[in-house]
């Protein structure tokens, strides 16, 4: 679906490239996450892939054609949900979506349909200038899927959303993936990436440090152990056991016969893996 090699981009007037020697592939139907702290080069990479940034070096092939060979028809197949909402503020949500629907020659979803998916059905005829930031974000997300894009770029799609709406968004992405959409997710939210992505790429200072499935990374960099905390006369006490041979571990089984307060997996989080791999904190 997407094949990037030796991608370089330097903003005009800057000495250092914003991204350098980037190479990755995204398979059809995959959710691929580009993860990194602010200023790492995620948005620059997305800017190149969606055709907003010009003057880059390297090779980008999308849906079997080089990016520069695509014309306006590229956007019949590609959807983009921006991190910063961008709407006609004087128009209602319906008018905004109907306008964008009119731009596509392929079949599009109705405004009501996509707004229902993001929990904005009752704000259909409200002017966007009256929307909160979270509502505008959800409208941006809804607009990006109007034409059912084959390749869907999502930039921080849950930023500024409450947990319920953030979960809704995740479910919509999973549903679209099941229907065949390929997703490139740009985020510094490791929990979101862990939930949604089949593979992730860690990007720091414009370079990709690792590309792998989240589970593989967590296994590789995490500790395969459980921590059992039991109540004792002197207070809570923790015991750690390796996962290997856990069912036959007599100490583990004996510990379970005591009053158990909590059992926690010692599996590492994607955020911890990121810090270990890149030596960089996520901000």
């Amino acid at each position, binding site marked *: 679906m997407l094949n990037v090699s030796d991608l370089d981009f330097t903003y005009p007037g800057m000495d250092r490239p914003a991204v350098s020697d980037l190479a990755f592939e995204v398979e059809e139907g995959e959710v691929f996450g580009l993860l990194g702290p602010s200023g790492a080069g995620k948005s620059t990479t997305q800017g190149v892939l969606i055709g*907003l940034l010009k003057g880059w070096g390297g090779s980008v092939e999308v849906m079997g054609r080089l990016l520069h060979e695509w014309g306006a028809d590229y956007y019949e197949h590609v959807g*983009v949900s921006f991190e910063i909402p961008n*709407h006609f503020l004087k*128009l209602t949500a319906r008018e905004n979506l109907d306008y*964008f629907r*009119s*731009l596509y*020659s392929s079949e599009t979803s109705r405004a009501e349909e996509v707004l229902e998916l993001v929990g904005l059905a009752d704000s259909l005829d409200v002017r966007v200038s009256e929307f909160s930031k979270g509502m505008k974000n959800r409208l941006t997300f809804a607009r990006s899927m109007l034409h059912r894009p084959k390749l869907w770029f999502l930039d921080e799609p849950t930023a500024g959303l409450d947990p319920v709406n953030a979960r809704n968004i995740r479910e919509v992405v999973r549903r679209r993936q099941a229907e065949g959409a390929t997703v490139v997710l740009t985020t510094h939210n490791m929990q979101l990436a862990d939930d949604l992505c089949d593979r992730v790429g860690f990007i720091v200072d414009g370079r990709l440090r690792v590309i792998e499935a989240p589970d593989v990374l967590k296994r590789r960099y995490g500790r395969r152990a459980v921590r059992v905390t039991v109540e004792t006369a002197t207070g809570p006490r923790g015991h750690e056991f390796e996962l290997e041979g856990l069912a036959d571990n007599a100490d583990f089984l004996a510990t379970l016969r005591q009053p158990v307060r909590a059992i926690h997996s010692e599996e590492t989080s994607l955020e911890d893996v990121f810090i270990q791999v890149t030596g960089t904190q996520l901000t």
Partner: protein
Amino acid sequence: MTWLEIARGLVVTDVKQITRDRFLGFVLVYSIMLAVVVRFAVPRLAVVTVDRYGVDIVPYYSLISSFVALTMGSGMVGLVLGFLLLDARETRVIEALSVSPVTFERFLSYRIALPMVVALGLNPLCAWIAGIGLPPLGPMLALSVVGVLFAGIATLTLATFADNKIQAFAIMKLVSGTSMVPLAAYFVDEPLQYLCGLFPPYWLFKAWWVAASGGSTWWIYAVIGLITNTLFLWWIKRRFERLVHKG
């Protein structure tokens, strides 16, 4: 997606935005209101100035009509659509359109073309309503057509040099003011008045004055006006493109 389909959707959106903003709606009809005032007030004023002060303003009718026909309508419609372009820049709607089948290049072409198309009707309409100091029909229509370039210039000037609505109002006054500067050339003899040629509208004003006084060389000034206004439009379009791509 054809050009016509794209333009139709954008026009509907523009009309909704303008009609929901009293200020923009007012600015759009302002030029017609002013032309009406010129038609009915100026001839009466001419009578008063002769009777009371012995000053005849009739020889200056072509000066007044040149402003009404060439820059007032174009300028006003250009500024209104400049506000919409600035709005699209501020709200980043340009980005959203750039990743749709409209694309940035098509959107910008439309945004520059629309004020010029509106001015194509508005310029001769304002001249006809004002009805004083007009050149013969041929030169009048030809100069009205070239005058539409000023609409595109006004749109891009406002959207390029203003970063927000407050600055936009200052730019609006600046555009209105500088479009009147070359009118001063009317009171200055040649060749000194050619200094006003640094302001592109001057050449069209000059062509209008020459045609209105029955001169035959008006077309030379019209051609120079066409070239200078086109070059200025091209330069400011490049500036706007750089601004958007940088930001």
